[in-house]
């Protein structure tokens, strides 16, 4: 088995890294390449760049900063943001990204998942799923589309576990589940929900949304058996350094790359 991964997430808007709370009220936290370099040197296993305004504004991510990042990094990174077709995915991969993550465009046109998997292989097709951690009347969690922009966010008309099974059967290579009510709150990952997703799929599963303490990382690996834990706020603020987090995880018996 590969080691559990720690992923630092950098939300990008207008060419700089930003961070909000529950996807709102974004403030600038720094330069893309500077932060990428810092996280790589602290021992991040992977980075994810979300161009959080691309999909709601109906445009693709800008390859210029991807090239700048690729020149600097010798660890893998994934890019998300408004990739709607094979040509746009190709531009992002050609700029140096290792994986592409698709969210709202996959909800709008699920066939896109299969098209990308056929062209580039499943291993570089990541599906991001934003989910409302509160269950609906039937006890299902609801998938939210366009959550990057509050005015455009809406119920995607799908329940979480059904969508997870569908993206796996269509050829996705990894799933990132982001509990949007936890996002930026630092109150812990949505472990119950993530454990249900874990049981529903063999795909690598990345937990996102809610990390606040080292104990939250331990909890999500132990309780939800996720393959990777993604965080942004706690890393950006310096409250948790990755080079302190990893020894703490190892001390708890969780295998990570030292």
């Amino acid at each position, binding site marked *: 088995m590969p080691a559990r991964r720690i992923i630092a997430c950098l939300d990008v808007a207008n060419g700089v890294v930003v961070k909000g709370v529950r996807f709102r009220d974004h403030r600038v936290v720094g330069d893309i390449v500077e932060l990428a370099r810092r996280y790589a040197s602290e021992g991040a296993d992977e980075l994810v760049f979300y161009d959080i305004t691309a999909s709601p504004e109906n445009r693709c991510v800008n390859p210029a900063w991807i*090239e700048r990042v690729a020149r600097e*990094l010798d660890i893998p990174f994934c890019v998300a943001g408004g990739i709607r077709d094979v040509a746009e995915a190709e531009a992002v991969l*050609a700029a140096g990204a*290792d994986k592409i993550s698709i969210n709202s465009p996959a909800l709008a046109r699920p066939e896109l998942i299969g098209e990308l998997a056929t062209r580039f292989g499943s291993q570089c097709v990541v599906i991001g799923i934003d989910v409302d951690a509160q269950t609906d009347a039937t006890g299902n969690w609801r998938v939210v589309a366009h959550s990057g922009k509050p005015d455009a966010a809406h119920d995607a008309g799908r329940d979480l576990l059904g969508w997870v099974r569908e993206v796996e059967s269509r050829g996705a290579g*990894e799933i990132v589940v982001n509990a949007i009510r936890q996002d930026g709150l630092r109150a812990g990952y949505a472990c119950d929900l993530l454990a249900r997703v874990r049981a529903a799929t063999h795909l690598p599963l990345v937990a996102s949304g809610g990390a606040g303490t080292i104990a939250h990382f331990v909890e999500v690996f132990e309780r939800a058996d996720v393959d990777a834990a993604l965080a942004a706020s706690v890393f950006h603020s310096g409250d948790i350094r990755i080079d302190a987090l990893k020894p703490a995880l190892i001390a708890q018996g969780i295998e990570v790359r030292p």
Partner: protein
Amino acid sequence: MNAGLVIIAAGGANFGSLVTACARLGVEARVSDSASTITNASHVILPGVGAAAQAMQHLRASGLDRVIRTLSQPLLGICLGMQLLFERSAEGEVEGLGLLPGTVARLSAAPRWPHMGWNTLDQIQPHPLLAGVARGAWVYFVHGYAVAPGAATIAASAHGGEFSAAVARGHIAGVQFHPEKSAAVGRRILANFLELPCS
């Protein structure tokens, strides 16, 4: 004329990170699909992001499959590029280049699929490509198919069973992981490859 390091433009999209990884080692790589440039290279890398059937179709359509078979200088296949060196792949049921004996199969016993993340190199055989790389070294994998350990295997890793993480025979070598994404260990392996003597 010696064209130095040439990365074969094999139709996969992701050459950028490989080119920059070589640049960090002080080696300027040329990305090319020209038969003469590839033939005159000192070292050749066959990269790969993509699916086996599409990649082989591209190599055949451009005649590069025949060019690759005639090479005698050090050749390194990376990820899908390593898988293409073998006889056959179950991914799209496609015939490979047949430079190494064996077939590529889905990692069907794996608890998670595809195999994505950092894993250790176990069972390292002495080989110049892995000089200075210790057993247990961490490298980055992203793949759903693999080659079972065989005579050409110089390093194995495990994910629901052992598979070939690195292979070598004569001038031909391959790594299932991504050295350009494997931090210091990957840098060392790329540097080792570039130091292999050109025939």
